[in-house]
């Protein structure tokens, strides 16, 4: 199957990409690695009039520690591929959850093309990275001709495949705290290795010592296990806390799992992830 025909632009800078976005409005779509976009275009679930390819903008491809002192964080350019996350020395030392999560996205071929910005912007509730960034209390940097704004990931998603990003905005960077090399875990549950998660749970320990959990495929957007986090803060055991992981979730029903099953599964995965992260 092949996409509906479209116009193609390959701007040579972010500024040029933004100008194209502003010019074409909602008929335009950003193409980075293409591994969220092209599959839906091939199935004709999406038919943009113009595709703006930012895949070669090296200015969006970086992983670095930015800022000073308490403000310092890891900044990741939106064009950074999953493969680059996996092999990043900076992330291995500064935020080791992310490469571990990235390693489970799709398969090697997908990881060679897919980008962190593309995955975040696409907003699939079954995707791995958004929930991990949520667990990390990350921030999304959006840029448009109107300027730049920083949106906490907690306020980014508004529903399935939807976010506060305006049509003229480009997701240019994601920022995550320097959580270090330890204190994290990712439990992803699938039937097949490269399937989307039926449920997944990421756990990260923030510099403050607080443990946060990001949940994949437990609702229309990535979710936090807030009840579990609160229980941990109150000194409850991992078992007690994990048992609360499904609170406030509205998991979907599909071939792979009923909502009831997902509510159960998330507690099992939360328990395991917390144990690993605490080991």
């Amino acid at each position, binding site marked *: 199957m092949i996409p509906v025909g479209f116009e193609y632009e390959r701007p040579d800078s972010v500024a040029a990409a933004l100008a194209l976005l502003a010019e074409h409005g909602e008929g335009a779509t950003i193409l980075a690695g*293409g591994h969220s976009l092209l599959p839906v275009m091939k199935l004709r679930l999406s038919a943009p009039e113009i595709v703006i390819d930012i895949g070669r903008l090296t200015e969006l491809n970086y992983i670095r520690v930015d800022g000073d002192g308490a403000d310092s964080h890891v900044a990741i350019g939106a064009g950074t591929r999953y493969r680059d996350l996996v092999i990043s020395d900076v992330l291995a030392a500064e935020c080791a959850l992310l490469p571990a999560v990235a390693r489970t996205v*799709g398969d090697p071929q997908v990881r060679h093309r897919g980008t962190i910005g593309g995955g975040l912007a696409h907003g699939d509730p079954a995707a791995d990275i958004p929930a991990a960034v949520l667990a990390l209390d990350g921030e999304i940097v959006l840029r448009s001709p109107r300027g730049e704004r920083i949106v906490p990931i907690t306020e980014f998603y508004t529903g399935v495949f939807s976010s506060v990003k305006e049509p003229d905005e480009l997701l240019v960077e994601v920022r995550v705290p320097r959580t270090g090399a330890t204190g994290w875990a990712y439990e992803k549950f699938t039937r097949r290795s490269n399937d989307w998660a039926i449920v997944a749970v990421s756990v990260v320990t923030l510099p403050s010592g607080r443990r946060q959990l990001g949940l994949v495929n437990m609702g229309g957007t990535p979710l936090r296990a807030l009840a579990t986090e609160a229980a941990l803060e109150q000194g409850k055991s991992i078992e007690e806390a994990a048992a609360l992981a499904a609170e406030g979730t509205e998991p979907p029903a599909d071939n792979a799992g009923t909502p009831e099953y997902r509510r159960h599964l998330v507690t099992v995965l939360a328990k395991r992830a917390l144990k690993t992260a605490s080991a």
Partner: protein
Amino acid sequence: MKVEITVNGERTSADVEPRTLLAHYLRENVGLKATNIGCDTTSCGACTVLVDGESVKSCTVLAVQADQLSVQTMEDLGMDHPVTAAFRQEHGLQCGFCTPGMVMAAVGLIDENPDLTEADVREGLEGNLCRCTGYHNIVRAVLVAAGKDPDAAQAEGTDDKTISPGFSAGEGAA
């Protein structure tokens, strides 16, 4: 729109619709038919080729995205290549349809990690489906191509997978 893509070391060029998939560019514009298309959902990997040395699924890359880049397909390898030679020696193919993609995925995998275990190979080929071989001999072929002893690696890999505290499947195994 005009694209120029180096395919198997040779410059190719064509005027294509932007929606042209790289797989179709290779098959129809360049005339290299080894690369197959087995699904619509980036699942099967039969269309795997290397773009600038990295494995990609050419059904999910636009030809325009590969403009000015270098693509390698199975046709470039020849039978002296360690991967193709091992696939033949270990019977890593039956109907042959997944083979061009499987071979190129293996080439990319070995390039990224020459020190492969059986588990590495199985995980590394997670994006490539084969309906004929049950993967047993594909895994062996990739191990052989990577310079590993497939018998040792497969035995080792099995034990790794099976052993849990207090239990060794090896004890009872023939």
